[in-house]
């Protein structure tokens, strides 16, 4: 693969063709914040927190760093005033749902986001889709998915699959940036009748 030379925040960065801006930045130890990115998963582009400014032939635009493929002579700016303002807004919008999530709080501090800007609607889930995609792409079990769309969209375990697969796995739990996933699982367990059949004793204790 051919080598591509680009510039990120004034620094010359060497990247390989097919890499994204985020990957190139990571390789040069330039930090770009993310919420829905995971190295084992296909880029999703849902949280938009990795929004950066790019300049190509004098034109500037904002793009998602986790998706945008590097190209020769690309100029990337990761912390312009506008980029910071947009990240701040994204964080404020998400803090309405998960005001106590540590990940969001740390980022809020960095970007001066106001935890209380919007009325709280604590649903905890910020729809990063990490659990859904990890279960589908890595585990290939499809035990958790999104239901409905838009503002009504939420994550949900599919009881028939979850009752068979989830007790011995739970690999998605630590991925969840707001612990909403665990709550959803507990809820599913509570609602699922008859009780999750293959549930081992140890699992019960762990979650109760």
């Amino acid at each position, binding site marked *: 693969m051919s080598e591509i030379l680009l510039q990120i925040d004034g620094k010359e960065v060497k990247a390989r063709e097919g890499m994204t801006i985020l990957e190139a930045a990571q390789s040069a130890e330039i930090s770009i914040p993310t919420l829905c990115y995971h190295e084992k998963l296909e*880029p*999703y*582009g*849902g*949280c*938009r*927190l990795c*929004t950066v400014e790019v300049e190509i032939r004098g034109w500037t635009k*904002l*793009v*998602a760093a986790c*998706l*945008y*493929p590097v190209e020769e002579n690309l100029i990337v700016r990761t912390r312009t005033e*506008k980029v910071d*303002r*947009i990240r701040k*807004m*994204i964080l404020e*919008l*998400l803090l*309405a*749902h998960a005001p106590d999530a540590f990940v969001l709080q740390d980022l809020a501090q960095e970007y001066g986001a106001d935890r209380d800007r*919007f*009325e709280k609607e604590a649903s905890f889930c*910020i*729809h990063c*889709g990490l659990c859904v995609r990890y279960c589908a792409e890595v585990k290939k079990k499809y035990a958790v998915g*999104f239901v*409905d*769309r*838009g*503002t*009504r*969209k939420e994550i949900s375990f599919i009881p028939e699959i979850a009752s068979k697969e989830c007790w011995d796995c739970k690999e998605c739990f630590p991925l969840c940036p707001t612990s909403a996933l665990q709550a959803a699982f507990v809820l599913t367990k509570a609602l699922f009748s008859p009780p999750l059949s293959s549930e081992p004793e140890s699992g019960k204790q762990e979650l109760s």
Partner: protein
Amino acid sequence: MSQINSPAELEDFRKGILSKRDPNKPCITLCSGSACHATGSGEVAKSLEEELEKQGLSAEVDIRKTGCHGFCERGPIIVIYPDEICYFQIEPDDVPEIISETIKKKKIIERLLCTDPSINEKIIRESEIPFYKHQERLVFGSNGSIDPKSIDDYLSIGGYSALSKALSGMNSGEVLQEIKKSNLRGRGGGGFPAGRKWEESRNAPDEIKYVIVNADEGDPGAYMDRSLLEGNPHSILEGLTIGAYAIGSHEGYIYVRQEYPLAVENVNLAIKKAEEYGFLGKNILGSGFDFIVKVHQGAGAFVCGESSALMTALEGRAGEPRPKYIHTAVKGLWDRPSVLNNVETWANVPLIINKGADWFTQFGTEGSKGTKIFSLVGKITNTGLVEVPMGMTLRDIIFKIGGGIPGGKRFKAVQTGGPSGGCIPEELLDLEVGFDELTKAGSMMGSGGMIVMDEDTCMVDVARYFIDFLTDESCGKCVPCREGLRQMLKILTNITVGKGTEGDIELLEELSETAKEAALCALGKSAPNPFLSTLRYFRDEYAAHIKEKRCPALSCKELIAYHIDPDKCKACMMCLRKCPAEAIDGGKKKIHVIDQEKCTKCGTCFEVCPSKFDAVTKISGEPVPSPIPEEKRIIIKKSKKNE
């Protein structure tokens, strides 16, 4: 039916069809599009058949059930050929007279004709009616003259001759060049040059390529693609096949909304017939070119009109957009090069190939060539579908063709481009419609929706309505759209119910910036437009709602009150009887008073108060005058002698 295997065979076959048709034989065409169907064209068709039978004319008169003629306000529409006599709003009871008078005696039935309001004269011929006269119906015109279920009808008007010309006389590169030269821009939303899209796909190295018809029309009030697909499905198939030939694709998809049953039925039938005749399938017209088309029904998600979401849905997954940093023309459906164009765009293709790019480019403006079909709805006299050359002014479309605003009301704004378009105010009525012109004005062409609004429309409420629509239709994948719209809707709703606060406009602007700059797809990026364009032209209305708690259009329920002017009330009891909330106090010879506590602001009193009294008024932004004391409510009539 044996297959047609060459261009020569096609022309022979066409001659055969035409030789059997006598142009002087009376033919009654009846609009059977969805709108006319809803107003009873099915029953009219039945009675036409029965009446012809009864009067012994079945063999001498043809009936043709056509697609939408466009003038939906006046449907069901009948046009009688060869004289082109046009009758409006036909009911089954009119049919015997039409047959006995117009068909038998060649007599015109005055009362069924259209009246030209400007000269107050009856008009006989369809093409002379002002609604049609100012149009340029290149794409939509055939709708009224063919039965969409008959491939022979399509062939009789020259159908599939463009395909034949492309396959036999042009190589695929020449077809592409012709489309590029025509400067045809996508009619579905963005206005991207079709030729450039085709070229990108053609040049992509992948062997397997797809062509797709986007028939997931979802804008409120828009139905031009529906009417084309219902009324002239073969023209879209022909365009699609030509496109496939140009880029080297052998498989096409039509993604059509499930909510369009007639379109689904007609396009499926058209595919079946085209396969039988050899216009689809293997070795089309003996050219060696193979192409098949499949129909996919959408499950009713607005976002699936976005190309990448549509492709995701075609793949069998939830219709969510995906990033297009690499164009779908290169990496689209199943990651293969895919050319997606909207129904109207494809329908333009056979015209361009048949008549040439030079012919096509004489219509329109520098940046926008050809014509555009608009769906003219809202507060407009002539509701319907209109096709005009690009560059016609909004004023001409709305007043010359649309007949202006009904009820003597004043024009306020026209919303173009669908939910994520914008509102254009009166001072820009002389704007020439075109892709770039509309974008510059803060709106967009979109797929051609045009919702006309009069003085009674509150622009803040319009913004709230469209943001509500988009909140409902957002796929929810990305934060700026899902969460941004959620908050925008809350703020706009608050403003319309009198809970707006200082700083709301600035916060809405900030949310708009985030969506516009950082959302994943075009739907999210354009979602703030309803707010931004209304703010741009009607900022004072926002200010009135927020600062004075006043709705200047007297439309927002929470901000208005109804009041009966005691000097005008004649105690006629109309409003008192009709008020569903029993909120009106009064009686015979006793001035009526509205109990503001009980009033639900349904507006019934306002509507039923006789116009000669005009006693009920709407008030906003000021306190309701306190009711007059009981003793002053009695009306003492003057004696009859004095009158």
